[in-house]
């Protein structure tokens, strides 16, 4: 039921966002083609996270709208959410569950059942071999983020990935793995929007850079 490929175009049209009494940004427009990444950078508090939350419909923009393949995402509703994966700033991992359980429930909640072996294999690839059964409480911040990122290999049929600071607290090897994952998704014609303080340089895929000002 994943969103079909082809014209994978994400558009922001005159987006405006007000948090508390402050206007974070206004008249913000951009277009991301299929197979292209949008790297959003900018100082803290410049509205990066708010922009991503607007893109995944968690937050409603003050004015302007987000369009997916030409249609406003408000109208698409569940269809848009079915083709979207969002990994937020907060690592959605429960301390009392093991990383295996966390991964299984995160995927089940998104409507996809995966064999146990594939889960363990993916966790191992994310450097969590041998730690699948430990409660997430004992894992480090970097390990917990890898547990939440371990979902991505299973979201290949989700056209749009929205990742908020996916590379924070990751070691070099994990960053490499993430670059490979993102590149693979773009090559498939998907769209990836991510925020990061380090520059995103991916080989032979186009990365659009959107700089947010304070």
């Amino acid at each position: 039921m994943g969103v079909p490929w082809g014209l994978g175009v994400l558009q922001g049209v005159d987006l405006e966002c007000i948090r508390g009494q402050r206007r974070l940004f206004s008249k913000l427009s951009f277009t991301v083609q299929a197979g292209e990444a949008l790297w959003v950078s900018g100082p803290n508090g410049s509205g990066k996270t708010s922009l991503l939350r607007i893109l995944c419909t968690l937050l409603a923009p003050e004015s302007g709208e987000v369009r997916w393949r030409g249609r406003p995402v408000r109208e698409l509703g569940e269809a848009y959410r079915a083709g979207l994966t969002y990994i937020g700033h907060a690592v959605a991992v429960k301390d009392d569950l093991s990383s295996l359980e966390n991964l299984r429930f995160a995927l089940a909640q998104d409507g996809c059942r995966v064999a146990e072996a594939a889960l363990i294999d993916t966790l191992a690839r994310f450097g969590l071999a041998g730690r699948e059964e430990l409660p997430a409480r004992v894992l480090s911040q970097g390990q917990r983020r890898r547990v939440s990122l371990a979902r991505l290999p299973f979201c290949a049929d989700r056209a749009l990935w929205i990742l908020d600071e996916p590379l924070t607290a990751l070691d070099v090897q994990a960053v490499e793995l993430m670059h490979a994952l993102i590149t693979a998704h773009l090559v498939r014609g998907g769209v990836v929007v991510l925020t990061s303080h380090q520059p995103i340089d991916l080989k032979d895929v186009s990365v659009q850079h959107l700089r947010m000002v304070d």
Partner: protein
Amino acid sequence: MEAVLDATPDRRTGLLAVFSSVVQRDLLLAMRRRADVLTSFFFFIIVVSLFPLGVGPEPNTLREIAPGVVWVAALLASMLALHRLLAADYADGTLEQLVLSPKPLSLLMLGKMLAHWLVTGIPLILIAPLLGLQFDLPGPALAVMALGLLLGTPVLSMLGAIGAALTLGVRGASGLIALLVLPLYIPVLIFGAGAVSAAVSGLSVEGHLSMLAAFLLFSAVIAPWAAAAAVRIAVE
């Protein structure tokens, strides 16, 4: 390295599978934190046992106040556990993922309400008749109390979930939940306690129980929608 890049999932699951995964996860979390579950259970027992100490052991008065005491204690016990229903998920970001699930959020909220009811409601239903004996209630009255709680406690969980969702991330949320939710509990209290006192005095209880069933259906319709809307507001 290559294999991990697109391990497409085995099968896209339907609504029921997503719903049961939400319930399963919450039950598993509750089992992992058994202490939380027992606190509201023991709270119920202690509150009910306080009244004879305050009112005096005289059986006639105890029998008179028993329905009200048990039902008010059930209200407070289920409200005590509400805060746990969503607050942890809101804090660690899992609630956001629930909002972004492709399945309708109101049905997933119904799953969370069901999990909350299984964890806090069922123990109350089982222990209440036992406590009723302390109040010298006759057999049929105990049965009506259990049946009334069976119909009423889900309503407490459902309406309570709305209060829990509205007060996510708010200062003094646990006190505020009581203020928001207790007025909504009043009809359930009136007919729940009314059923037991009718049973004690030998009157018919069908009317009371059918009203409780009506509240159950009514809140099953509005509570998931309202809780979902409240969660969307809180997650914004």
